[in-house]
């Protein structure tokens, strides 16, 4: 899979502002979200290709989280269309998006404080059935344990989220998202507050996931740390698309530089 080829293909598609359902695993056309009179997302269109790692970048308040929330169904968009795997999914509630294979992590971390790491992960592996004997004997734990190992929490299985360090919380977020067995993973600010080695190990994990066939969208307000990871980036500002291209292209884009007031992007 050539990242460059994918980028070229995509660049054409989005500049035309004419996104079609099958443009990628996720396609968003003319997404608009208003709160009262405030426009948070302004006719934004983009597409995400299968198995790429897309950086989704913008200054604070640019509308990244709102876009995320509209795509995952947390808010219904004011206008626009979202396609996932070729199907129209605009306004589908979050839990259904998860079932379709789209998972996300939360920037603000939202683990269940009342239970252990292992059980937090186990929750996301549960079926949506009302009456079940499953869980009565704790049989989820083997699989949940495997995921915990994967995200590097195998020595903290029985701690509660409150006992985890910052990096551990991030790993737990990832573990919970992986528990739903997603095809597309939206990762919100994964590197905020991480040390160098931690950034590296999380990056490795994300790359591994991509190699296994997962598509990833990584949100951040700058590109530091993302450069080694992403194949392509989209930059938004004031709710609309500012730039789209390879990390190098983005870095050298004058509009982007202006938006970040001289080098904030670095």
């Amino acid at each position: 899979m050539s990242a460059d080829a994918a980028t070229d293909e995509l660049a054409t598609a989005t500049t035309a502002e004419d996104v079609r359902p099958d443009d990628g695993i996720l396609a968003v056309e003319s997404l608009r979200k208003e709160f009262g009179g405030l426009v948070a997302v302004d006719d934004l269109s983009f597409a995400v290709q299968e198995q790429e790692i897309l950086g989704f970048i913008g200054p604070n308040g640019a509308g990244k989280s709102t876009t995320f929330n509209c795509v995952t169904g947390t808010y219904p968009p004011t206008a626009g269309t979202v396609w996932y795997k070729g199907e129209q999914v605009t306004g589908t509630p979050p839990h259904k998006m998860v079932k379709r294979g789209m998972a996300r992590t939360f920037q603000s971390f939202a683990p269940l404080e009342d239970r252990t790491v292992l059980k937090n992960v186990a929750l996301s592996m549960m079926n949506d059935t009302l009456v079940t004997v499953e869980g009565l004997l704790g049989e989820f734990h083997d699989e949940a344990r495997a995921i915990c190992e994967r995200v590097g929490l195998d020595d903290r299985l029985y701690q509660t989220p409150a006992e985890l360090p910052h990096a551990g919380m991030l790993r737990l977020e990832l573990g919970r998202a992986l528990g739903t067995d997603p095809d597309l993973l939206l990762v919100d600010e994964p590197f905020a507050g991480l040390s160098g080695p931690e950034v590296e190990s999380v990056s490795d994990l994300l790359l591994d996931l991509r190699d296994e066939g997962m598509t990833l969208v990584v949100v951040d307000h700058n590109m530091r740390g993302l450069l080694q990871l992403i194949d392509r980036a989209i930059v938004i500002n004031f709710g609309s698309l500012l730039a789209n291209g390879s990390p190098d292209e983005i870095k050298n884009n004058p509009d982007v530089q202006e938006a970040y007031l001289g080098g904030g992007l670095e």
Partner: protein
Amino acid sequence: MTDNDTSRLRLLLGRLNPLGLPLRQKIGVFGLAFLIAMPLLVSLPVVGRFVVMILPASSWELGLYNLAAALFFGMFAMSWDAVSGYTGEISFGHGLFFAVGGYTSAMLNMGHGLSPWVSVLGGVLLAAVAGVMIGVPALRIEGPYLSLVTLVAPLILLQVFIYMSDIFGGEQGLGNPENLVGLGFVSNYFLALGLFLAVFVLLWALTRSNTGSILTAIREDENAVSAAGLSTAKFKIFAFVLSGAIGGLAGAAYVHTPVGSPTPSELMSVIINVEVIIAAVLGGMGTIVGAALGGLFVAMLPDYLNLVEFTVPVIGKSISEMSFFLFAIVTLFLLNIFPGGVLRWGIALGRRATGRDGGGKEGMAADGGQSPEDAGTNPVAQTMERYQEYYDNMFGGDDK
């Protein structure tokens, strides 16, 4: 898969072996065995005397009746816990379900001549429908507003009963529906005990399965649950329907015994609504076991007080006359000595009773086991946080 199944089976069998149970569960099994054997025990020479002494009455016959009534209330308290204890939406008018079950069943039996067994099923069904009617608005209205809706719902029902008193008998209720198993002391006791155990096993298993884990997760954080691909709406409505159906079953069976009758004061009074909250909260919210024990305790306490032949000097009232008044005062006292603490203490107690304080050990039921020391992680704290959030939103706290 077969390997897996066999190992599961072995696990299950291992769990059912009474000798392998932890102490608290041994106590529980012993208690159950005692309840089941009691009618036999009273006929033994020495043991019988002892049994009658601890019964909430001064004769074994009345003791069994009172115990049967308490078992029905215990079922009702468990049904409250299933929704309020697990999802954290406090119901202030749970008598609604008790009443819908009881009245429906009585009316089907008395008005349409259905066998009481069939009409009880009708009562359960309609109470489940009432669960939907409360559960669906509960998706939109939350926190104190929902509590308000639940508080008002039985009052609206009472107004309807009064307005159409030719059908519902107004505040006087309906007459005397046919009994399920006649007037017998022992047979009615076993009816109540059987239903109580059935409900207990059902709710215990359900809340210890994934479903319970999801419900408690809803209490903790709804966003996290939907991020796990689970529909909070579906599970919340399920909790209300389940709770409604079981509350309805308790009410329906109760009116078809010699210890209960379909009147508003027995099924849906403000006092019933308060008693059920106190029962679950004292016994331990979100544990089922606690609600069951709390329900038995709350129902039998007035019976025990009633046996006390003591007249308070200055006011010239006997203890038995004031039993409910005293119960309310004691409750208030407990709520105040440990501000919020009696609840937490109850939870810790409930946890110990259900063995959920093990925290880290694998093999525990997947019900969100936790240590009680962590502030903000028990059902009461979670529920309080939940309500605080709504208030903050309502009062423009610190958002935006």
